[in-house]
């Protein structure tokens, strides 16, 4: 897009700049969102570092919702309120869905596609519960070293 812009400039010379509209993707947020919706998780995170607008959009939970349910049948509407209450889709995706999908993906069982998200949700919920506990525990031994049920997903897999 940047190249197009400079080429246009070059072709038309100086006088016709006002007549030929410049195309900034940032002016067309709806197109931008459509494009970002196609990205995978990692690219979406990278996209969030481009500029402030992209950052705001990439942090929008609905993009991550899309990522979570991309390959599965659309979930019932009640799922959204639950996920938002538990911490949002971005957290669900980065914390649970992505590692679950990548580990289960190695086994390649097609029948598991929808259940992966279910399992991720359950693990996500346990994680939320544990985070609740960290904040109002009595501070004896638990605080910083509070075990997290998702830690086993974060560690590198021993193949």
């Amino acid at each position, binding site marked *: 897009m940047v190249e197009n812009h400079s080429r246009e400039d070059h072709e038309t010379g100086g006088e016709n700049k006002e007549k030929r509209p410049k195309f900034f993707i940032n002016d067309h947020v709806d197109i931008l969102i459509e494009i970002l919706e196609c990205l995978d998780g990692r690219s979406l995170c990278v996209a969030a570092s481009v500029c402030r607008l992209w950052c705001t959009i990439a942090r929008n939970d609905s993009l991550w919702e899309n990522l979570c349910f991309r390959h599965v049948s659309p979930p*019932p509407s*009640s*799922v959204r*309120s*639950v996920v938002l*209450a*538990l911490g949002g889709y971005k957290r669900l995706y980065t914390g649970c869905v992505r*590692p*679950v999908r990548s*580990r*289960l993906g190695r*086994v390649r069982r097609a*029948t*598991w596609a929808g*259940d*992966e998200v*279910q*399992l991720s*949700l*359950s*693990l996500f*919920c*346990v994680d*939320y*519960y*544990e985070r*609740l*506990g960290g904040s*109002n525990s*009595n501070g*004896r*031994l*638990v605080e910083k*070293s509070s*075990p*997290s*049920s998702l*830690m*086993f*997903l974060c*560690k*590198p*897999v*021993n*193949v």
Partner: protein
Amino acid sequence: MLRYDSTSSSAGSSSGSLSSSSSSSSSKPPQQDIDGLLAGAGYKVRSSELRQVAQRLERLETAMGNSPADFSQLASDAILYNPSDLACWVDSLLTEFAEPPPTCSSDFIVDPVNNQTVVNSAWTAAEPHTPQVHQNITYDEQQSLDNQLTVVTAMEEDSGIRLVHMLMTCAECVQSGDLSLATSLIDDMQGLLTHVNTVCGIGKVAGHFIDALSRRIFQGMGGGSVNGGSAFENEILYHHFYEACPYLKFAHFTANQAILEAFDGHDCVHVVDFNLMHGLQWPALIQALALRPGGPPLLRLTGIGPPSPDGRDSLREIGLRLAELARSVNVRFAFRGVAASRLEDVKPWMLQVNPKEAVAVNSIMQLHRLLGCEQTRNSPIDTVLSWIRGLNPKIMTVVEQEANHNQPGFLDRFTEALYYYSTMFDSLEACRIQPEKALAEIYIQREIGNVVSCEGSARVERHEPLAKWRRRLSGAGFRALRLGSNAFKQASMLLTLFSAEGYSVEENEGCLSLGWHSSPLIAASAWQAVPAWDNHMSSS
């Protein structure tokens, strides 16, 4: 001990080299008789003997494949010849396999994974973690045989086996009352522990069993309360055990799936948890109920747990946490805590069950604590089972350790426990997160201590296998509910997430069990009370 004989001219005490002895005599064989190609690879075989050596190698291969237990024998007692003198070497090995090894009664106990890693590194260049002992010893693999066998690993292997032998002997002495011999064995074993790697494998487990045995010997039959950790400590250890390995997660997820299915269509549901701990089982159920088609029911949870000594109402705290979670996901929720130090102290009226609601009783590794040593008519287990039946629950989920640690004879119990906990420690090796792993090991260590060193009412870890529970529960008026394919699928998925490749889920007449390398370690089952008139008609 493993001795490496690099000179091909020694006859050795394990003879049996027939025609090859001529080649290993002091005079060097004529050079032109040696097969050139094999010589290039480092093996001296006479061309005239090629066919016989090949045949003997094939026999050796089948012999090794047929008797995997003999490997430990090879590692400890064999005198081996330099494999570059192939004929001699293969003959010496064949004689090893020809004689049955002296009774190694602890074969089945020796940590199979550890055993094979040592053997594998010695014999072939195969992958060190394969659980299979069958190795196809081909010429190519023999080329990579290291001439300098690591004597240290062999000695460790040997010490490991000796430790197991001594543990068994010591247990036998304890059973027969010969405490002086038992004490001296304890000393010997502790000395032997220094030769063994106690960071993993047989050394670690053996260390715990030695401790437990010595505690048993030195504290008398009353047994100290090994389980004497405070309730708070126990909860922490339990939580770390939950994180470090999949057993409790499997238990929770499987039970939740069964409860979810049983609650289908009910608007008022009540779950009774026999051991609340940190309530880690319930968030997933609350979430699943929140998302069930038709909307969530009113959920009541009654959590039973030990009373907290210092005025902290830990049950109530957990209840508040769960309530907060339930409120976030819009599930109507009510919690009640019942503080009881023993399950048999709980009376059904404390649970305040409403007759209109669907009840689920959840027991994760609690029922075995009721199996007191007296098999009287009104033993605690019968009392509790009968009031559970009186509640008429839609489902009772029972998860128990799949082990036989309640036998009257000490030696049998000890042997079972050694095998069971070795397997469990093996599976824990795969865990990489600290301090979860260390604390999980302490959790298991306390169980070991209770099984081995306590007696009477102090011994609460009275595990019984699934088959026994089936008989007991059927006799008490329950019938089994099949756990279903969803539970199985979920369990399989959960296991795949855990990085270690050794876990396996098995389905056994409607019950699921989770094991390590096909040794089941924990079994989950679901039950329903048979209606009273049915039982009346079929009662004996």
